[in-house]
């Protein structure tokens, strides 16, 4: 259990660092999502399933969706329609 904990924490730190280093905004959001998911597993290991459910739903789900929507608004996500036109 201890090893899994350490592995997850290292993964979270690596994600947190790489989010700020990534140039591509879309990949940054996806890395952020992965970090949230790892965090929710850590919450379960810390025996707080309440927080784990909330983290998985809000952190990995809704927040990332809102960021995707924002990226779409500022045209940082290439969509198929525009690609075809080109």
């Amino acid at each position, binding site marked *: 259990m201890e090893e899994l904990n350490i592995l997850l924490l290292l993964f979270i730190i690596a994600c947190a660092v790489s989010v700020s280093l990534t140039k591509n905004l879309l990949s940054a959001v996806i890395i952020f999502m992965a970090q949230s998911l790892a965090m929710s597993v850590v919450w379960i290991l810390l025996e707080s*399933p*309440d927080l*784990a*459910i*909330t983290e998985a*739903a*809000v952190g990995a*789900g*809704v927040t990332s*969706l*809102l960021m995707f*929507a*924002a990226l*779409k*608004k500022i045209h940082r996500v290439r*969509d198929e*329609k525009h690609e075809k036109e080109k």
Partner: protein
Amino acid sequence: MKKRNETLLKWLNEGSETLDQEMMESLEGDYLAGDEKQETAVTKKDESSRFHMIIRSAYIRISTAFSVVLCIALIAILMYTVMDMPYFGNADTLVESEVSEFYIEHTLEHTGAVNVISGIILNFRGFDTLGEAHVLFIAVCSVMILLHIHPTEHGAHLMAYEYDDASEEPHDDDILLTGVRVLFPLIVMFGIYIILNGNLSPGGGFSGGAVIGAGLILYLSVYGYIRTRRFFTMRTFRILTTIALISYTCSKTFHFVTGANDIKAMIGIGTPGTIFSGGLLLPLNIFVGLVVACTMYALFTMFRKGDF
């Protein structure tokens, strides 16, 4: 950004003095980030705007330096505070806090909630949760103020653009459609389960509401606005959140008035472990869940389209 630069160049070449202040400012912001070659080409035209540009770039440099210093100071202060906190996982530090011990020992007998956390956040700290629900409601209101499209001439243009954007939504993808048809009821059912079992098992109004909200967003992004508008519009959002917030406030006030005046509460704590136990916990969970689910969905819709 390049497009914007081009429009500004065109406008300046035509000698247009009617460029409104707002447009000018946003364009200048882009300029400073853009390459300097173009900048000099334009500023040659107008000496005063060049002076303006220099002041602006100095201002940006100073404010950047200031924010960096502020961030470092804030990090240092927070790090210093963390050193004063009790060590993680140390059994002795728990003794210092009588409150947590009281909660762990007496929550069941006072509130009838098997899930201690639910008992704390909805009973002992009920008004905190009421504040949180209102914060979510206010967040939606402010997003509405920021992103709402006013029906002016410019607004109509934007609206047409947004409509075009939204009409792309229903994808003709069989895997996506079938997957959502199977998953959507399950996700919503799981969310309802979390809310209703809030006083028995991990979870509660907030997590369940977030799950339902995420399910609604999934449905929306696959089936499009025309399908979701049938059962969820701006009016539904307003009615649901207002009713939920008012009912939460009323039931919490009832709780506190009866408790403070030694009036025997009509609603007992029931048998711990059954779904109707814990007095008002079940309805309170439902109200919070409604507010959170509506908020999540409304936030996404407004980010996506500017309006419902």
